[in-house]
């Protein structure tokens, strides 16, 4: 069972499975606040769905510390897609009285 916030984070990873993401960027793209985002990331890492590693940069040349980068694992991609599908199956279609959202 995954929450809506976990769902947003997972979807962001699944949209571009090869892309490495970092905390601030994920907060901006998903809209999930820091208080929820980091426990979600920790849980996904512990489950083996995400792999976390330090950025490979020359800290002296770049003049900034290394970020922690999160990347979807093969297990995470497989199980994540299944979880997302299950999530939408559980939620079901929107009732007729819910107005349609205009996509940007």
């Amino acid at each position, binding site marked *: 069972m995954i929450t809506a916030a976990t769902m947003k984070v997972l979807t962001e990873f699944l949209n571009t499975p090869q892309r490495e993401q970092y905390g601030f960027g994920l907060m901006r793209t998903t809209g999930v606040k*820091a208080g929820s985002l980091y426990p979600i990331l920790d849980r996904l890492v512990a489950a083996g769905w995400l792999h976390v590693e330090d950025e490979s940069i020359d800290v002296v040349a770049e*003049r*900034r510390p290394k970020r922690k980068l999160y990347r979807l694992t093969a297990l995470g991609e497989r199980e994540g897609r299944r979880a997302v599908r299950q999530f939408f199956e559980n939620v079901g279609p929107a009732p007729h009285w819910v107005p349609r959202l205009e996509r940007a």
Partner: protein
Amino acid sequence: MPLGQAVVLGFAALMLFCIKKAGEVAIQNEYASWAPALARLWVSVAGFVCPSRRDQWRADVLYIQKQGGSGLYEAGCHLTGAFVLVVRAVPVGLRSRLRGSWTKKAPTGTFVMVDENVRVMLANKLMMINDMGVGMDEAELDYIVKGQDGLRFVEVKSSTSLPPGSPE
């Protein structure tokens, strides 16, 4: 209204207008200088509140600033989020501590629900019994076997050379 009061009021109004204009100029024109500094300050405070994330957040905000952003919005969100993270960590820490003390005192044979699984308390260890009727502790040193005569506790260390899962 006497002339003196009118002059004072007019002067005060002019001063307020000047201060407002100066504030606007400072906020708009000097944004590039004060916003990144404020963002770094906020991230430092957030890191002080939640030290385990300090380096990660500092690296993130410096990366955003290197890309040309101020990072002010993200830093503000992380400042409030740091307090939430600390508050959320308290019950987790308490739960693990209480669970640790509880397993030392719980009577043998107590069945408990943990993470939607039924576990049994045996010899001061919480063990989950699987469908095969075999349970193992977290360190995988001891295990229990569900037989016809009930649950039996087997200590791997003292059960000679038999591998786990072979009680006889």
